[in-house]
């Protein structure tokens, strides 16, 4: 009995929707649009459509996405956490032999202050903040993410070219924001050994 009323209501509702769409379409058709304008709107839709297809295609088939792993962490207790305790920071090999870098951002530096990683190798970074908002990017590379307190920012990338790169804070985090930066050495793949042995003071740009 009840189901029948629901079905009946459902039919009425769909009927209304169809009527609405039909009416909307009729009205749309009645609007005066110049030939030239019609062509331009078509071109616009095609161009935008193409951009959407490229972006969605890259996201789905090539996995090209911005860092978006939603994972929470208590930023006030990083030093007590196992993962982001001081002794566990920096470059590590995980059980699959892949490179994992754990970094803490805090006013005003990234810790550890210097790391060394191999070029042309998949590297996963896990960034956390111990205080306010930060952002980090390594110029001329794809390594860029926001670091929001309360969340772990995870990003996987690789560095094609060996060299000394600065690691820069790119989000206003206080009056000392300018001074918030550190170093990363990207070492040719064949020269890199774990654990990294390049001393921080040895890096002079």
């Amino acid at each position, binding site marked *: 009995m009840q189901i029948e009323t629901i079905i009946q209501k459902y039919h009425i509702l769909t009927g209304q929707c169809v009527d609405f769409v039909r009416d909307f379409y009729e*009205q*749309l058709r009645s*609007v*005066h*649009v*110049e030939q*030239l*304008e019609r062509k*331009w*709107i078509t071109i*616009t*839709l095609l*161009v*935008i459509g193409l*951009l959407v297809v490229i*972006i969605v295609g*890259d*996201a789905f088939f090539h996995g090209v*996405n*911005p*860092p*978006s*792993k*939603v994972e*929470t*962490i*208590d*930023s*006030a207790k990083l030093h007590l956490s196992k993962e982001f305790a001081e002794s566990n920071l920096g470059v590590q090999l995980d059980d699959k032999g892949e490179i994992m870098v754990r970094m803490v951002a805090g006013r005003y530096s990234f810790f550890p202050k210097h790391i060394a990683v191999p070029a042309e190798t998949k590297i996963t970074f896990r960034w956390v903040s111990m205080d*306010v*908002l930060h*952002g980090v*990017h390594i*110029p*001329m590379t*794809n390594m*860029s*993410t*926001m670091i*929001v*307190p*309360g*969340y*772990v*920012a*995870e990003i996987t990338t690789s560095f094609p070219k060996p060299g*000394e790169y*600065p690691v*820069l804070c*790119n*989000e*206003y*985090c*206080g*009056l000392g*924001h*300018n*001074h918030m*930066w550190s170093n990363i050495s990207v070492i040719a793949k064949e020269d890199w050994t774990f654990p990294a042995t390049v001393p921080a003071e040895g890096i002079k*740009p």
Partner: protein
Amino acid sequence: MNDAAERKLALSHLWVAFIAFIVACFMGEYQVLERSGLIPALDSPTVYFASVSTHGVLMGFVLTTFFIMGFGYYTASTSLKVPVWNNKLAWVGFWISLLGTLLAAIPLLTGNASVLYTFYLPMQAHVAFYLGATLLIVGSWIWCGIMWVMFKQWKQVHPKQPVPLAMFATTANALLWLWASAGVALEVLFQAIPLALGWIDTVDPGLARTLFAWTLHPIVYFWLIPAYIAFYVFVPKQAGGYLYSDEAARGAFIVLAVFALPIGFHHLYMDPEQAKGWKLLHGIGTLVVSIPTLVTGFTVIASLEIAGRLRGGKGLFGWIGSLPWSNPMVLAVILSLLMLILGGFGGVINASYAMNAMIHNTAWVPGHFHLIFAGTTVIMYFAIAYYLWPMLVQKPLFSNSLALIQLWTWFIGMGILTTPWHVLGLLGQPRRISSVVYNTLLTLAWKPYELAMIFGGLILLGSACLFIYNLAKTQLNPVSGVFTQRVEYAEAIHPVKELPEYLNDFTLWNRVIAVLMLISFGVPILQFFFMNTFGSPGWGY
């Protein structure tokens, strides 16, 4: 119609807007100078970040909100040919917004709110800053209400008639702003103010950023729509021709109002608190909202071509030369469109879900929004002011040639300022730094661009002073005689006699916005209440 009351109302709003503007221009030039390190004595992060915060609030909130309100009141009354509904209430709105501005100015100027105009919780400013910003917005809500009432009243008196395009677009903007400002209002009322007053101990910065992103995209369309209104309703007439298509204009304003709202996550592409699916959805919406801009570009250029040909222009490009380049409105629209083409190209890069990673939070971003806001949008604010000022003060413009020089120098200065700014971003310079102290070779490449920016800023500052000078001289000029010029709205080449209701009303679109907002922000906001999140205590700076 004696519109002395409307003129006074509009003039008061516009003066507040332009005083905020000129103060912020001086700050802007100081900032490029300080940032370059050219004069070591200037170096001070404390002053710099107080200045950047104030510059952002003055340009982004005060100039825009007051300009839009003043222009909106005058547009409503002149296009509908009725007095502003409830003049007293309009003045209440004005004083609330002004009070808010002054209240926020105290902590900003004393360095007690150096959190930039995007708030950046869990960084914490003095509570007066948040209260002031709230009052500024509350005042603007009164404006939205008055626009809405005037729109509805006119429709009641003129059933089935198309609402004048200028008023239709103004109402679209009021609707857009009511929806847009809700996000930041929630952030300020439930997070920033309670935290600043010590009622709560922690806030979730992820939620704060999500709420701010709700506002952050549509707010730029709130600022841009007056420029588009001038494109459609003033430019064709001033150029000596007709609007190419009234229907396309209405369609563009509707799509702008609807799709500017559910797409704010392109500001959060690089953030960890939202998942990629939501970002992609908002990214697609961001590309959709470029469609009305492309349609606008076409319609405006077509309208200009009609005018050029009516004035005797021949050949494929001959009509461009025969346009009245000495009319400030026409010159401004040409320069505005040139900056829109370049800025729009940059905008598509920012909007691209993955490509954005290359320029995120680099100097490219302020370069982009100065080009598209301070360039494309504000140059049309100038043109509107030059056009309306004589009618508002009932005296002829002090100097047309000064106005033309001012528009040209603004365009040139903006080019010199923003081109190096974009390049700096591509060279990896972060935005929001007060000086370059990184000990790396890369910074050597930045130097020449920073110096060029000082020069561009100087030209802009001079141009801004010329603008204020011209307006003040116009108003103070002792001129006798009756001034009879009235606002002239452009006619469409095919005037619209009747319109389908959905192109003449916002009831349907308001519902569409509600559904789209629910889809694109519902789960992303609710997730914070279901996840195990950890709040952050407030921090100084």
